[in-house]
């Protein structure tokens, strides 16, 4: 918080919490109520994420990738996108908090993870929350890492051609940054200065492979310069910094061209419910990174600022548990997709 502000530039920069704040002490464009709202969303996502993991162990959810540790980035960027109003998102499998904050209900989430009728992304055809949720302006077609990047660039190209203000934001991991398509996407976006944000959730692991075995550099954002993009490193564990950096990136993308936002964050859980991270990272490492749990740090921030008191924090947590209990029941009761639907929607008539 002592570093000077540095927004998107044509070289890599580090973002830090803004000195330009409003009278309330909050960054431009948001109120205490927004933060209360987003704190609630964060607690809700954490609660459902933990529940889903448990249900996997009970044999009710075949597979899940956890967003735990990524919440500040996912919610802070979504808050920026929501406030802007004209963003379209290409997410990846770890983005549960983005999807929920964008409007997906806990009941829909449960149905999706259990492969039940009523999953808005694909109605049980794909892995949980994969396909599209066009009502909430999200596409996440596949499991192939980095495949969404060129698509997001094409979406941005179409925004330009159609003369609208939409900015595409594409989320991906540090692992995905090694894919050839990542290079192609950034290169094209740079050539045409398209309104697109490449938002990298750098948790330093691609399943078990640590960042040092993936690349020779520390900051992925440094690559931006090679494509003529703005590159920014952000503390992805701090929702306010993420909000500010994304807000600024959106306006930069619209007025000047693409931005590579590298969110430094941590993956608290194993890669997925099928993974055992004890095989490749020491338990102390996980204990350490959990010291910066975004749910706890945001809760502390909220009480310090006087936006919430401890009683309210406890109440929010209770409400979240009740909501997730109900959603779990709804998921369990929901029917399985009818096999007769299997052939639907191969083509548009």
């Amino acid at each position, binding site marked *: 918080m002592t570093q000077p502000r540095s927004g998107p530039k044509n070289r890599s920069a580090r973002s830090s919490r803004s000195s330009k704040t409003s009278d309330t002490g909050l960054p431009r464009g948001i109120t205490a109520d927004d933060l209360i709202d987003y704190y609630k969303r964060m607690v809700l996502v954490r609660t459902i994420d933990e529940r889903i993991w448990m249900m996997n162990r009970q044999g009710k959810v075949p597979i899940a990738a956890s967003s735990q540790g990524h919440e500040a980035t996912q919610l802070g960027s979504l808050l920026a996108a929501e406030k802007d109003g004209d963003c379209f998102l290409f997410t990846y499998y770890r983005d549960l908090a983005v999807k929920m904050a964008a409007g997906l209900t806990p009941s829909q989430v449960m149905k999706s993870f259990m492969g039940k009728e009523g999953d808005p992304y694909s109605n049980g055809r794909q892995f949980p929350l994969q396909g599209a949720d066009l009502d909430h302006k999200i596409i996440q077609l*596949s499991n192939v890492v980095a495949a969404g990047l060129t698509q997001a660039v*094409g979406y941005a*190209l179409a925004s330009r*051609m159609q003369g609208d203000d939409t900015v595409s934001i594409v989320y991906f991991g540090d692992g995905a940054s090694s894919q050839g398509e990542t290079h192609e996407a950034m290169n094209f976006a740079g050539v045409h200065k398209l309104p697109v944000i490449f938002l990298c959730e750098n948790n330093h692991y691609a399943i078990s492979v640590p960042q040092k075995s993936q690349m020779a550099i520390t900051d992925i954002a440094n690559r931006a310069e090679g494509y003529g993009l703005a590159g920014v490193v952000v503390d992805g564990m701090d929702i306010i910094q993420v909000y500010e950096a994304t807000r600024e990136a959106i306006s930069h993308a619209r007025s000047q061209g693409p931005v590579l936002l590298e969110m430094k964050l941590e993956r608290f859980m194993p890669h997925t419910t099928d993974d055992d991270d004890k095989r490749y990272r020491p338990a102390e490492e996980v204990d350490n990174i959990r010291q910066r749990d975004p749910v706890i740090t945001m809760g502390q921030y909220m009480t310090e600022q006087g936006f919430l008191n401890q009683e309210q924090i406890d109440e929010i947590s209770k409400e979240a548990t009740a909501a997730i209990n109900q959603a779990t029941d709804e998921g369990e009761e929901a029917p399985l997709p009818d096999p007769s639907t299997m052939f639907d929607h191969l083509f*548009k008539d």
Partner: protein
Amino acid sequence: MAVISVIEAVRSAMQEEMRRDSSVFVLGEDVGKRGGVFLSTQGFLDEFGESRVIDTPLAEASIMGIALGAAFKGMRPIPEVQFSDFVWPSINQLVGEAARARYGSNGQLTVPMVVRIPYGGGIRGGLYHSQNVESFFFHVPGLKVVSPGTPYDAKGLLKSAIRDDNLIIFLEHKKSYRLVRGEVPEEEYTIPIGPSDVKRQGSNITVVSYGLMLHHCLEAAELLSQEDVDVEVVDLRTLRPLDTETIINSVKKTGKILIVHEDNLTGGVGAEIAAIVADQAFEYLDGPISRLCGPDIPTMPFAQSLEEAYLPNTDKVASALRELAQY
């Protein structure tokens, strides 16, 4: 009616559709100033401008992914793959992503996109400028695969493809581009994706083909007619969805079938047709279901002798037909 070449037909189909619908645009390598290496977009840059005629970086995965993303937002992109041999870097976006988009989103996403691919050999292209890629796409649910053989069909099918709300792989035999000429009406017309076309009626043997090989089949049928063998020639035009009905009806009439393609024998379009005929017209067959196809080597080699040895031609088709006629 004017007589034009296949490449002129392709060009005029795109030009008419781009004039008709401002959401149609082309992108690919050298499609701008150069007008495409085969000149399929000649003059487009001047007429439609840089925003609708996009010279892309030399990177096929992004050409396809960017076209797909634009299609998601309601544009009608026509990405051009410079040669079929270079489609492989884009297969992830084409087969992994685009072909599954509608199904995988339970009907939310649409992909109104036509991927144009010059393919095939006989032009001394060797292993990397001659490839027949049709059987790979033929295998994929979610794709429509078209391969016209004449200027008339090329124009009418391409216009339909551009208007279709689904992803279409449009395969243009590159040797046919200038070699094959034919009459095309001045007035507007389209040809539906799907139905095949009986290019020659006959009663003794059915020969099924598509693309450039169609013309060898027609020539061979003419030769056989002088030997009192009456050959029916079915031009598939669309490979997927396959017009099973026309093939079966023809076989029921003739009792014999020869399938001809330049693509490799094993796992080719002909293998599927053979299975369908065996399944649906077994009692009508008077001879073995026969195939004349490219042999199972990685595309036709460069040397003239080797290229000729690889390719089916009129004489080879004629002798296969004679053999079948005598059965």
